[in-house]
């Protein structure tokens, strides 16, 4: 029964099945330290200042937009009746989703022992935090009277007004704040050994003092490493349900209602898959340019990019499954309102948004079936722009198309964003990128200690082998 393959086929399959090293060109431990710390230690490059000026100026748009909103009132947004929720909540969900890739990489891929994560986890976790910061702005300001926003927290107060615990909007407050807290802790715990490395290499007193303060007296002793590993593991365990819960709770904002197009049971896992999809697209969008600028090709290898493309393909396809399942059940359920909601999405006045979403989220990632496309960095960067756009449209489609047709045709309407809407949103990209630029400038953008741990030198077997070799040659 044995099949005989030609030697060429055998050789091809063997090459295909050979595992690639995670760090290329046999780089050693010192090279890793030097390479990554060098990014922080070198004098601030001119391009960084230019980029920083641009992004910082952009973020002024959000600051201005929010100031204008608070001083004038919600009327400065394009909201109307019946579309009482539009860009604010779309932007909130969009940014919250971006964060999910970071948590997936840092927590779930850690628990599943995916060693390739070490090259990208630090930067993605940073993106998580910055994305949540951008997301947090919108629910914060859309309450109308922002000075009342603390009412969302269940604190005892004179008016004896308690938040409505049955409202998913309140669950959101808890979910997102928990997510942010745990993500910060997780990120910071991972940073400690690397901050100590920066401290030990610091040339000026001030630097030494600041990094010393932040590295919490890390000496790299055996006991410290043991505690560190345990803390990291526990935080990964806590973060994993958070990856699922945050976006599930966000999906509850819509799915608990009875509005056609919002109420569907697949929403929680579908939102989570979409968030990871959009998050990975953003990670690649930001990371690939920095990979080129800092010549990190040996650490963030083409293989890493390829794997992330595969995750985008998978999650994009899951999102496609959910879209089609929604469509199918809307038809199968045979509820005329539900059927109309989906018919209207696809063929109504917002058809362009719907089909943009379909193309960007379902069709575009299918290009990643082809290895030639996954391994071409420029093409990858171009393709991942589609999920970035598509995931924004997805939330817009879900939110606006479901409510712009009320039950009575007399209450039908259209949403047109105001200039304040647009500029406030554009400004959040400024905030996101500014924070990221600061991160790259002051903190190690790749987890030094973790990358070292996946080098072949970190494996006890490897050392033994080399030492035996050296010893025998010395004799």
């Amino acid at each position: 029964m044995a099949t005989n393959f030609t030697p060429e086929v055998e050789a091809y399959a063997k090459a295909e099945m050979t595992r690639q090293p995670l760090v290329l060109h046999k780089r050693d431990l010192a090279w890793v330290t030097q390479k990554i710390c060098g990014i922080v230690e070198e004098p601030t490059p001119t391009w960084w200042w230019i980029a920083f000026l641009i992004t910082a100026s952009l973020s002024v748009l959000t600051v201005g937009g929010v100031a204008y909103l608070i001083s004038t009132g919600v009327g400065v947004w394009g909201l109307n009746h019946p579309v009482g929720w539009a860009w604010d909540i779309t932007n909130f969900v969009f940014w919250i989703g971006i964060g999910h890739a970071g948590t997936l990489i840092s927590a779930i891929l850690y628990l599943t022992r995916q060693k390739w994560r070490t090259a990208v986890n630090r930067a993605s976790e940073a993106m998580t935090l910055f994305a949540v910061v951008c997301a947090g702005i919108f629910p914060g300001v859309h309450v109308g009277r922002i000075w009342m926003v603390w009412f969302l927290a269940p604190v005892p107060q004179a008016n004896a007004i308690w938040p409505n615990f049955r409202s998913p909007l309140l669950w959101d407050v808890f979910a997102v704040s928990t997510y942010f807290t745990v993500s910060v802790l997780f990120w910071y715990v991972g940073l400690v050994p690397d901050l100590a490395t920066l401290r030990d290499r610091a040339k000026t007193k001030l630097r030494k003092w600041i990094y010393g303060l932040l590295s919490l007296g890390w000496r790299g002793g055996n006991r410290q490493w043991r505690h560190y590993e345990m803390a990291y593991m526990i935080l990964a365990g806590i973060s994993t349900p958070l990856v699922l819960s945050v976006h599930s709770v966000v999906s509850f904002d819509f799915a608990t209602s009875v509005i056609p197009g919002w109420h569907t049971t697949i929403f929680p896992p579908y939102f989570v898959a979409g968030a990871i999809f959009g998050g990975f697209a953003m990670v690649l969008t930001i990371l690939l340019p920095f990979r080129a600028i800092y010549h990190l090709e040996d650490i963030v290898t083409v293989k890493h990019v390829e794997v992330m493309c595969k995750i985008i393909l998978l999650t994009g396809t899951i999102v496609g499954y959910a879209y089609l399942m929604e469509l199918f059940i809307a038809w199968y359920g045979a509820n005329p309102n539900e059927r109309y909601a989906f018919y209207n999405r696809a063929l109504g006045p917002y058809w362009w948004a719907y089909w943009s979403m379909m193309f960007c989220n379902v069709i575009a990632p299918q290009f990643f079936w082809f290895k030639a496309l996954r391994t071409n960095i420029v093409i990858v960067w171009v393709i991942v722009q589609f999920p970035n756009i598509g995931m924004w449209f997805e939330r817009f489609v879900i939110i606006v198309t479901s409510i712009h047709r009320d039950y009575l045709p007399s209450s039908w309407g259209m949403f047109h964003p105001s200039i304040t809407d647009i500029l406030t949103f554009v400004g959040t990209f400024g905030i996101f990128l500014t924070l990221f630029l600061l991160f790259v400038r002051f903190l190690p953008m790749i987890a030094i200690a973790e990358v070292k741990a996946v080098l072949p030198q970190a494996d006890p077997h490897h050392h033994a082998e080399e030492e035996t070799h050296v010893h025998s040659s010395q004799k």
Partner: protein
Amino acid sequence: MSDHSHTFTPPSPERLTHDLDRVSKISLAIGVIALISSAVGGYCDRVQALHSYLFAFMYFYTIMAGAFFWTILHHAVDANWSVIVRRQFENVANLMGVMAVGFIPLFIFREDIWKWTQPSELAHSVLLQEKHGYLNMPFFIVRLIFYFGFFTGAAYFYRKLSTAQDSDGSIVHSWRLRWWSPLSIIGFGLAITFSALDWLMALDYHWYSTMWGVYIFAGSAQSSMATCILIVFLLRKAGYLKPLSGEHAHIMGKLLFAFTVFWAYIAFSQYMLIWYANIPEETVFFIKRNNGSWTYLSVFLVAGHFIFPFIYLLTQAVKKSWASLSVIAVWILFMHGVDHFWIIAPVVRPDGFSMRWTDFTSFIGLAGILVYVFIRILGSAGLFPARDPRLNDCIKLTN
């Protein structure tokens, strides 16, 4: 702890050496007798007996589909750890052919199970007429052919190449299997979703939930992992698969834990959203199962399918021991049965929880036949892919 020597001798291929011929024949005999009794039961009360049979059928079908899922997942992510246990997933998935034959009674007596298949129902139900584009016989048959064609064909393919590698050791097989796996995932997703919709959701054609396919998938992946843990445990007891260590048990335990939580997540989301929105055409499903003594079963399902295994599997030591892991595997397999009983039985026993003897005979009947076939499959090839290129990495595994 870990072995520091560099010379690593791969484990020699293992075949089943125990003579299980007698066991398998006894099992077949029990199975046949039980199925005959089910048929007798069907003569007395056809509708109840058919639902009993559907329950047993879905129980095993989902386990086989899940085993297929783990096989293709192994190839898709090119995993190391699962090489040595993969053959067992392949074996279980290859029982799908039996299920294809086992569907015949359901197909013949479809009108007693799926009301929509009755022509009279179509004539007077406006709702059904609206759904006729999907719920019609020709399309139902096309889908049946797809489900069983896909599962039996693909499961055969994955095991065939895997066993071919046992004899010729060519790496090309591994590469081909990996190449096909992402496409198989798409086929799997469609097959498990729509078979769940066709056979379970359409028990009441009024009801619908977009989550249904995911819900059935979650239980399917969980219970098939439990099945495989149990098979490996038994094989190890019998002296096989010795290169497997507690590290492998640990990983399987973690995946079992993960899918226990995933099942709960999906089940909770589906329940909570339907409860919260409170739309009559959706709540009908849960109202039926929160009626009378069914309520106790619903509560038991939550506690037994999620809370207990969740707590049990939390600690590391439990997951690292094959014995303690197989205890919970047995429990999860029991709860998988409760889950499917809870889905199917209330449809025909609206007054409250009750069991019929046909529930047991159908289950024992299918189980007996499946054990018979499984032993044949088990004996027909090596117990693990002995010449898989990743076998060494698999055995040297540390968590």
